[in-house]
């Protein structure tokens, strides 16, 4: 699957986009966040306060219990501030 990071999540992870295989045992967004945090470094910094991280799967806003599959496009970003 494709994982995207925007705004300060991009800066903290040092990544704007990466291709990943759904890690073993990960079934939903919360599981993926835990797995990404486990990488340490910029990833644990980016997800340190999960309450301020928003997620979209296939370009729709979702909650962290949203189920994932390998073809998904998952995006992590802060609360939006457009307009």
């Amino acid at each position, binding site marked *: 699957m494709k994982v995207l990071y925007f705004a300060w999540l991009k800066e903290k992870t040092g990544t704007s986009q990466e291709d990943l295989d759904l890690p073993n045992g990960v079934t939903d967004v919360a599981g993926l966040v835990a797995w990404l945090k486990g990488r340490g470094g910029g990833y644990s910094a980016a997800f340190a306060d999960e309450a301020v991280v928003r997620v*979209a799967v296939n370009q729709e806003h979702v909650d962290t219990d949203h189920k994932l599959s390998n073809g998904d496009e998952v995006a992590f970003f*802060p*609360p939006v501030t457009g307009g």
Partner: protein
Amino acid sequence: MIRVQEHDFDPGRELEQLTADNHAIGGVCSFIGMVRDFAGDAEISAMTLEHYPGMTEKQLEAIEKEAHARWPLDATLIIHRFGRLEPGERIVFVAAASAHREAAFEACHFLIDWLKTKAPFWKKESAPSGEHWVEAKASDDAATQRWNKP
């Protein structure tokens, strides 16, 4: 209609085009968001807008569709810019046209309120202290919630 673009737009021309050739329109209401030169006590010299290409268009189209489902509208327009903008520059334009003013006013207000909490844009401000990402405001969430009431 929605547009996501780096360059500026001409509000007068946009309004003319939006309402041209439709004489069922009795009124059009529009809102323009602009870059301020301050944030709290800090002076802002520029702002950079990042967005999520693909999702941005999808969300703006969904917001526009929702407005048409709620009010009898003849035409709507959302333009949102991205990239580096300076104080005084236009960021966003929303407009709603209808046979009567009430629908036009309400839909215009709804479009900008929903856009602010649903469209994936992020602002980074440049101030004397450095650059920092703008934090979302609770008042924006409250403004969106208002439209969820029955």
